[in-house]
């Protein structure tokens, strides 16, 4: 786990490795990642899709779920402790704070990647509200369907930001009849043209 997180974090943080190691140790001793997963019936519907009876607009969502009768909803968060740790580091040493931020992003991504890899059925490329073709307005419904507030303490702000800050939310189609062990495709960043975006998420490793 540590190795995988460090390898992801190193792509965000081009600084000295020992600083990254120190940050990851501090992070792992202070935070406990939590995840909420739910498999719900879905179908393409008009300009979007219906998941668990709720309509969510978005052509990209429709495409992501096209041909799937079920959708996997996944939320992961590092919780309030990670935000507090980051704020404290920022008050003391910004270089260290940057390393910690990289580790926190990497950890939440790795948790999500592991959850998707551990899912026993094939999955389509995950998508997320706020990415092209999937309006952010759909985020609230996904959080409700996941009961994410009660289960993992994840909410959204009025502006649609996930809170706590180091959190992820994905929807992935579960196609019928595809064999287990098919590769988990890349997350939505892969289809985005802005290569220099600092918030760009890395591809999930291919399922072995």
């Amino acid at each position, binding site marked *: 786990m540590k190795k995988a997180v460090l390898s992801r974090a190193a792509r965000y943080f081009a*600084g*000295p490795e020992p600083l990254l190691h120190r940050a990851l140790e501090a992070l792992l001793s202070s935070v406990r990642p939590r995840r909420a997963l739910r498999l719900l019936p879905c179908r393409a519907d008009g300009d979007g899709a219906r998941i668990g009876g709720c309509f969510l607009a978005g052509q990209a969502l429709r495409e992501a779920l096209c041909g799937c009768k079920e959708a996997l909803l996944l939320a992961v968060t590092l919780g309030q402790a990670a935000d507090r740790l980051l704020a404290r580091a920022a008050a003391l040493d910004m270089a260290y704070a940057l390393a910690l931020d990289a580790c926190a992003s990497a950890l939440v991504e790795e948790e999500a990647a592991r959850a998707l890899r551990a899912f026993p059925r094939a999955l389509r490329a995950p998508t997320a509200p706020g990415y092209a073709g999937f309006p952010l307005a759909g985020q609230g419904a996904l959080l409700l369907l996941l009961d994410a507030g009660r289960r993992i303490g994840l909410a959204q702000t009025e502006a649609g930001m996930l809170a*706590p800050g180091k959190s992820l939310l994905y929807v992935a189609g579960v196609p019928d009849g595809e064999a287990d062990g098919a590769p988990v495709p890349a997350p939505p960043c892969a289809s985005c043209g802005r290569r220099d975006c600092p918030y760009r998420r890395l591809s999930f490793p291919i399922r072995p």
Partner: protein
Amino acid sequence: MLENLGKRVCIWDGAMGTQLQARGLRPGELPESWNLARPQDVLDIHASYLAAGADAVTANTFGAYALKYGKETAAVVREGVALAREAVRRAGRGLVALDLGPTGRLLRPYGDLAFEEAVSLFAEAARAGAAAGADIALVETMNDAYELKAAVLAAREAGLPVVATVTMDETGRLLSGADALVVAALLEGLGVRAMGLNCGLGPKQMLQQLKTLRACTSLPLLVQPNAGLPREEGGATFFDVSPEEFAQDGAEIVRAGAWLVGGCCGTTPAHIAALRVACEDLSPVPLPQGPRGPVVTSGSRALDLSLSPVIIGERINPTGKPRLKRALRAHDIGLIQREAAQQAERGADILDVNVGLPDIDEEALLPEAVEAVQAVCDLPLQIDTASPAAMEAALRRCNGVPLLNSVSGKAESLKSVLPLAKKYGGVLVGLLLDEDGIPETAQGRVDIGRRIVAAAEKMGIPRKNIVLDALTMTVSTGEDNARVTLEALRRCKEELGVRTVLGVSNISFGLPQREMVNAAFLTMALAAGLDAAILNPGSDAMLRAFRASLTLTGADPQCGRYIAFAAQEETAPSLAKPEGAQETSVGDAVERGLKSAAEAGARACLEAGEAPLAIIENRLMPALDRVGAGFEAGKVFLPQLLMSAEAAKAAFAVLQQEMAKSGGAPERKGTVVLATVRGDIHDIGKNIVKVLLENYGFAVIDLGKDVPPEKVLCAVREEHVRLVGLSALMTTTVRAMEETIALLHREAPECRVMVGGAVLSEEYARRIGADFYGKDAMASVGYAQRLFAAE
């Protein structure tokens, strides 16, 4: 029922949501809307639980807040309570609980819901519920201690007795990190009638959490487990524990100490009926004692002051600190947060927060400072003010159970402060002085302590929640002063059975080598039984005296903490002679991002006779420029840039100290206000810009994150600022950035605005009216340099 608590086991009802779903509640449909749309179904559900033997029913108001129901809220709540009331009337028995669940939003600083906004949401529901005839409020399913506090306060202020339950995970913590002791101390302080657990776990798993919670409180306990752990199938959730099994486990829960039991998700009237039968012959177990000593907490961490002496960090106090004074006046939270974080790093157990300044709105500023500290530390706080209004404002916003510093023996003080301690909880610091001043004798001080304890107990504040301060008087003005203080301290402990606190450093006022005297006095005070020492954790001498004294007084089992402290000291780089200091010049150290070496290099330059300003101009700034140029050229990356900045900051600190000795300070090139805009809670970009601007000689007023436009304007006006930097992460918050720019251009046209953030581009920045788009942090520094140089 509340009056008869403890005489018989009380049975609460089961799940409402499960029953509504069984009657056709659709995914995404708001459950409380059925109070108006399908009242008969709701009434029938209550009736079925009462028929099953429940003593209390919970109105269908769990999430009935203005966030979801807007202007309909009061009507939805009123109808929900009325339906429960009607069911009870028809049954001829039962108690009606207004249900208050979480709002679904996260409170600041982790989310964007302000604490008082949360209180208002709960208060609207609580007032409507009370008016509709609710007997009590059940605050439930809370997984964040701060939101729990907001809900309980609102319900209490609406005049309702409160029972509160939280949802813990299998490790015994709320999702916000609070453990059982935090929850218990918080709820006892807020005056709930009973507390407990609900949801999240089945009855078997909840049994262990109950035992843990019971060890932390002396209040009655309510337990409402789910009907097992949830299982998903075909998009639906199932709970597998049968009524019979649930009832057996429920009886076990009663035998383990719960006085009230009921059910949560997945439970049905059949579960409650079986539970009633299983508990029929059981009697409530006597209440436990609760923790021995006074307990203070943050939102996630508790500290029992009876277990071992603690350090209260004293640095957040503007007395004698001109920089902090300026920062407080400008609402610059950056310096407060740095002081808090540094003290936490140095081992403080509690942080004192004092913003008392002449001509300052302490009532507004103290809660602001409390929130700023809470965002970076999970240490309990000591709220330190002479103003009861400021004390109350800060007590409300404090996440956890603080020390209240202070009440004294003066009648006016007792009258104004004791009610605050009664309403909000907390551990009360009593100063041993009264209208006649500070008694010269130990006897006089103990007498005042006795009066404070008696007055507090009369108001229902337990003795264990009082900590007395015997008051340190300067030894240079009276040779007996230390002895009198220590005798008063010892006698207060022995005769009054309370804990003690002491601000240590006043003892040496007016003497040379103050630390030497302070450390000796601290050692003597700890030997006399001091429980909490208010001191500067940045002082090595004080920390050493504290750790060593604990070991010698038997308060450090197996000398464990001392050994850990000593090991840390041995491995910490010495500031005097760090490794490689000889070989590394201050400029090289900055370029290589070596903090300790940069400090040592600066010291070496001073020792060699160089003037501080010359070191800055000839060594530090050129080094920073070289790093900056490397960054621009793509040869140096952001981490190295920041490491250099931190190294330069460390060297600056050494030079500033030297300049302060002669009353000087480095000239600032200008002042910049920085803020992450309203609605935006990500501030790493803003923080990076701040560090670099400070390094290049700019004074920065850091307003933090989620900052409304008016607050930015206020800082600009008060400090006559010519440049503002705004940051926003998302397209949804760029709108707030645009509003802020428009306000600044309209009301402060001489002020320039630079912007940055992930979603911005030069063109977008121009479109929203910004004067400059910083593509990265160095670009912002460059703009500031050009702007102020032109002036």
